[in-house]
């Protein structure tokens, strides 16, 4: 970070706004007046406000919180390294992330491979994830012992990616998957020509380690996506979440063209220490905190 002139920032963990992604469960706490503040699921919103205010390249190393996520690679309270690079494309950031992982795992010899989301699916399942229908995805899943009835298209893609596709990644390699389906863009730019989201993920072996974007800069588009999340929460019967109006205002004022990435530090430590379970790299895991 020092070598690249990236400034460390410490942003608040609590906010009046909450992440609206329907697949994430933000946790809230209450102040003595009864006001709810939300623990951030990542420092993204606060960091984008700083970028819009002219901070230049920045990084955050600290805690994030995602409710209900516990398992061999998940702890509801976990550590993220998130950084933003102004003027760098997401494809160049991908290479930087691979370099960072290599440095962190210096005693391992790791190949680096870049492969598109579409090609990763074609290699593993011989289907095109951008055009396959739910029925076709269900058949592919069924052939691999995954028989669920009520999954929607993105849910099938998630399940197949997390089980069949990434289990085929070589163990001693950093696999960089890029160009996700537009429906899974979150806050990444969508390429108008190809209809894909300019988003990437980094895996070491089958373990998902980082998620990065060519960041969406347009304030109106941001508003539209957050509103779409809000409708989705409503449709699913989930409680409404306060939208981050300050982020919208900052982005409308002008977010510089940049790419950003979040890396799971606990998982990086698991790889570095060859730990079998995230509990091994936590002072006190969720159940004992």
């Amino acid at each position: 970070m020092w070598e690249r002139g990236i400034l460390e920032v410490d942003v608040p963990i609590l906010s009046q706004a909450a992440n609206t992604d329907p697949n994430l469960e933000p946790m809230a706490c209450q102040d003595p007046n009864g006001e709810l503040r939300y623990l951030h699921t990542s420092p993204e919103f606060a960091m984008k406000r700083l970028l819009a205010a002219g901070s230049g390249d920045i990084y955050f190393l600290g805690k994030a919180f995602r409710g209900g996520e516990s398992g061999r690679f998940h702890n509801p309270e976990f550590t993220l390294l998130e950084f933003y690079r102004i003027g760098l494309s997401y494809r160049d950031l991908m290479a930087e992330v691979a370099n960072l992982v290599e440095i962190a795992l210096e005693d391992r010899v790791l190949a680096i491979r870049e492969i598109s989301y579409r090609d990763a699916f074609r290699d593993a399942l011989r289907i095109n994830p951008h055009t396959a229908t739910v029925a076709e995805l269900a058949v592919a899943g069924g052939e691999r012992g995954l028989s669920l009835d009520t999954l929607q298209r993105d849910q099938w893609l998630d399940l197949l990616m997390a089980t069949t596709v990434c289990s085929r990644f070589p163990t001693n390699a950093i696999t960089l998957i890029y160009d996700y389906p537009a429906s899974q863009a979150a806050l990444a730019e969508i390429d108008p020509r190809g209809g894909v989201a300019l988003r990437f993920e980094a895996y070491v072996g089958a373990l998902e380690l980082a998620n990065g974007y060519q960041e969406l800069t347009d304030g109106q588009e941001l508003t539209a996506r957050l509103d779409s999340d809000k409708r989705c929460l409503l449709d699913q019967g989930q409680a409404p979440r306060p939208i981050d109006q300050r982020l919208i205002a900052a982005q409308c004022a002008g977010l510089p063209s940049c790419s950003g990435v979040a890396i799971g530090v606990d998982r990086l430590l698991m790889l570095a220490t060859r730990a079998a379970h995230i509990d091994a790299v936590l002072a006190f895991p969720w159940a004992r905190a």
Partner: protein
Amino acid sequence: MATYSTNEFKAGLKIILDGDPYSIVENEFVKPGKGQAFNRVRVRNLKTARVVEKTFKSGESVEAADVFEKDMQYLYKDGDFCHFMDMETFEQLPADAAAVGDAGKWLKEEDVCTLTLWNGVPLSVTPPNFVELAIAQTDPGVRGDTSGGGIKPATLETGAVVRVPLFLNANEVIRVDTRSGEYVSRVKS
């Protein structure tokens, strides 16, 4: 009807799937960073003992199975049923041949066994780890005869056949490990 949500899943939890009682063997939480979370579980069918894999969307609910284990005393066998008694309430329960399974060859009256009950009905019977049974029949061993490896088959009072050292004779009582089916030692009376 009691239910469990996927976030309560853990090894040993008893659930109903497709009408059968299952025990969770292993539970894995799977979630791609910003996508839908799933629970992949390996479950054992408590009727057939087969282990299968199932995947659930996180947040789904499954029916809880009223399955638990209880120590009961073996009383007697009547046709195809073995009868057991709750040692506190003195209530009796019949266990059919399917539930008794292999345990049948070790059962001696008054032995305390562990029964797995589903809705109060015996699903399986586990005999005590060690039982002491008399040898009903065995050929007399010839001292120094090592042609059979120093052991010979013996039929026990329950009908089980166990390999024992040559020096043992009928009516002697031996201790057997029911988990391996092997002779452990002679029991001095």
